[in-house]
């Protein structure tokens, strides 16, 4: 039990719109949007299906400053069609990554809030996501760090989950979720014994920020707060990860060791207990800073 009382004042990252997140993470007033709503580059596929379009096709892209250094950034609007990546949306993401090769910013920030491919756009969406993956890797190969921020209500799933893990680093809040197939898909195809999607605690133990952090897949675990994400972005943007053969070998090494140590676990709780000891049950209830103190150095170092 902690002391009862009002929560610390914070501006929720999760509740903010895509544009507000950028405004909160980047230096105040520094964001300049490209292909904004006034340009009306909307989805021809949705129009053909007679569905509502969004003026920015659900993603905000542009340039700005982060801690004084020039960056390019993209922020997905999860509320629009679940943040699904369609042709135009994907092209904007690819465009900002291609621009990075020309403009050589200090970093690229991807504020991801997405279920993955926009199903209404089928192959166009699939192709778009794979091109985003290529764009991320190209930017990294050119020495430009790509940082993913995950903390929206739609998480980061599907092909975009793969995109996130192709980035240099990831900052997540506890509320954020990262994965490939979502819990409903797994329950539907494999049955409720495999994963009970209604067991929210289980869902967050499996996909949530705290678990991803403990597994070494998220580099930072932050409070659901715009300032906290901003601080994490500033720190991570200056730490690019090498992307050569040596780095990949080290990663495979760690993955193999992780699989050997924890591959038999059927619930994240078992892994947490192995890593942290008897206090593992309290971990979901702790604030981000308390959680980090409790975990200490027990986190799996991914790279």
């Amino acid at each position, binding site marked *: 039990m902690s002391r009862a009382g009002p929560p610390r004042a914070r501006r929720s990252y999760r509740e903010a*719109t895509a*544009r507000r997140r950028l405004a909160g993470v980047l230096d105040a007033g520094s964001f300049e949007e490209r292909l*904004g*709503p*006034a340009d009306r580059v909307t989805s021809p596929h949705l129009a053909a299906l*007679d*569905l*509502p*379009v*969004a*003026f*920015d096709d*659900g993603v905000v892209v542009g340039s700005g400053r982060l801690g004084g250094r020039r960056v390019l950034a993209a922020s997905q*609007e999860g*509320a*629009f069609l679940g943040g699904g990546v369609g042709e135009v949306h994907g092209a904007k993401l690819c465009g900002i990554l291609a621009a990075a090769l020309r403009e050589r910013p200090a970093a690229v920030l991807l504020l991801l809030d997405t279920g993955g491919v926009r199903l209404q756009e089928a192959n166009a969406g699939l192709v778009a996501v794979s091109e985003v993956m290529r764009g991320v890797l190209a930017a990294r190969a050119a020495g430009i760090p790509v940082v993913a921020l995950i903390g929206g209500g739609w998480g980061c799933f599907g092909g975009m989950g793969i995109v996130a893990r192709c980035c240099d680093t990831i900052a997540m809040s506890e509320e954020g979720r990262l994965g490939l197939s979502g819990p409903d898909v797994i329950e539907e195809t494999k049955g409720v014994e495999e994963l009970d999607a209604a067991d929210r605690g289980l869902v967050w133990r499996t996909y949530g920020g705290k678990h991803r952090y403990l597994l070494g897949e998220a580099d930072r675990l932050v409070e659901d707060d715009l300032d906290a994400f901003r601080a994490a972005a500033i720190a991570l943007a200056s730490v690019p990860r090498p992307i050569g053969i040596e780095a990949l070998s080290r990663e495979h090494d760690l993955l193999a060791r992780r699989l050997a140590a924890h591959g038999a676990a059927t619930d994240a709780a078992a892994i947490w207990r192995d890593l942290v000891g008897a206090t593992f049950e309290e971990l979901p209830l702790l604030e981000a800073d308390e959680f980090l103190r409790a975990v200490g150095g027990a986190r799996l170092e991914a790279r």
Partner: protein
Amino acid sequence: MERLEFELPSARPAAAGGAPVVVGVVASGNLEILVERAEAPDRCRFAVSTSAHGFGPVWRAVLEDFAARRAVAGLAFSVNDAGATPAVVGLRLEQAAEEFLGAAP
């Protein structure tokens, strides 16, 4: 989608307004509104694309009241609507006008 267009008389705002502004999100029960400068000095324009069919008269009533209540002449409002109620539409219109004009109209 149903498309509706209105041109309504309104008073001239004190401020000129600057860069285009968008408020809201296209999600069920919600809408986005894009506000830009337009030419007509004593009228405002509304272009609505809505997934809820048959509510033309309600849109007209809501927008007429808004144009009469707020000084928004010379502005163009473009709307992508996914079935928002008049309460939400009214709220977003106010937010959009305020953000575009920069202060209390």
